[in-house]
């Protein structure tokens, strides 16, 4: 992982991820070694509390960077907003 300076990151939560978090969005400042979506999820989960609840099973949480679906391996450098949500369930 490339170490780069921590920068504020806007995170959005939807559906039960939002409910477990108790909020729809927030700004976090992950350390510089958090380089991918998977890194970010692991770092958030390690905060415990509501984070531990929302990310208890990271494999069922989906992510989007700047409104595009991404895989856990996607790098987060340059992201304006990252969203976490359950698998979509249509209309």
């Amino acid at each position, binding site marked *: 992982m490339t170490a780069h300076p921590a920068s504020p990151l806007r995170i959005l939560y*939807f559906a039960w991820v939002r409910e477990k978090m108790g909020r729809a969005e927030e700004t976090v400042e992950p350390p510089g070694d958090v380089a991918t979506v998977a890194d970010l999820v692991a770092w958030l989960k390690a905060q415990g509390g509501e984070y531990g609840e929302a990310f208890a099973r990271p494999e069922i949480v989906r992510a989007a960077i700047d*409104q595009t679906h991404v895989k856990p391996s996607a790098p987060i450098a340059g992201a304006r907003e990252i969203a976490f949500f*359950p698998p979509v369930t249509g209309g």
Partner: protein
Amino acid sequence: MSVAVQEADFDIGAEVARLTSGRDDIGAIVTFTGTVRGQSGGRAITDMTLEHYPGMTEAELERIEAEAHRRWPLQASRIIHRIGRLSPGENIVLVVTASAHRHAAFEAAAFLMDYLKSRAPFWKKESRPDGSGGWVDARDTDDEAMARWESLPAGTTAR
């Protein structure tokens, strides 16, 4: 081509008229309307609530609508998806496709609905008469219906 994500209900006849009035190059118009059923998985529901990702959801709907126009010769189309709390019997989603020929209109509408049911960023919560309920899990069958289209080169049909 246009999409809308809105709390308000829609009027099927008015939407069709808006796409087709004054035109004589359309021969076939298909509409699909999805409505809230009074039960889900064999158990009664009192209402459901739909959540979306403002901005991303609209962009995804526009992207899939453009994909439908690439795959089939469509003259016009419209996607409206409601959000918020909806009661049994209420409308959820409307897809309208217009083409010179019926098979293109039918297949494009089915394609759009398979996408909307499996991939569009909407999340559904159901409430039951006993106060229970919760977020609905993703259904594999919907995802399989969508995967069927993805295994086909654009321009071919699934029929």
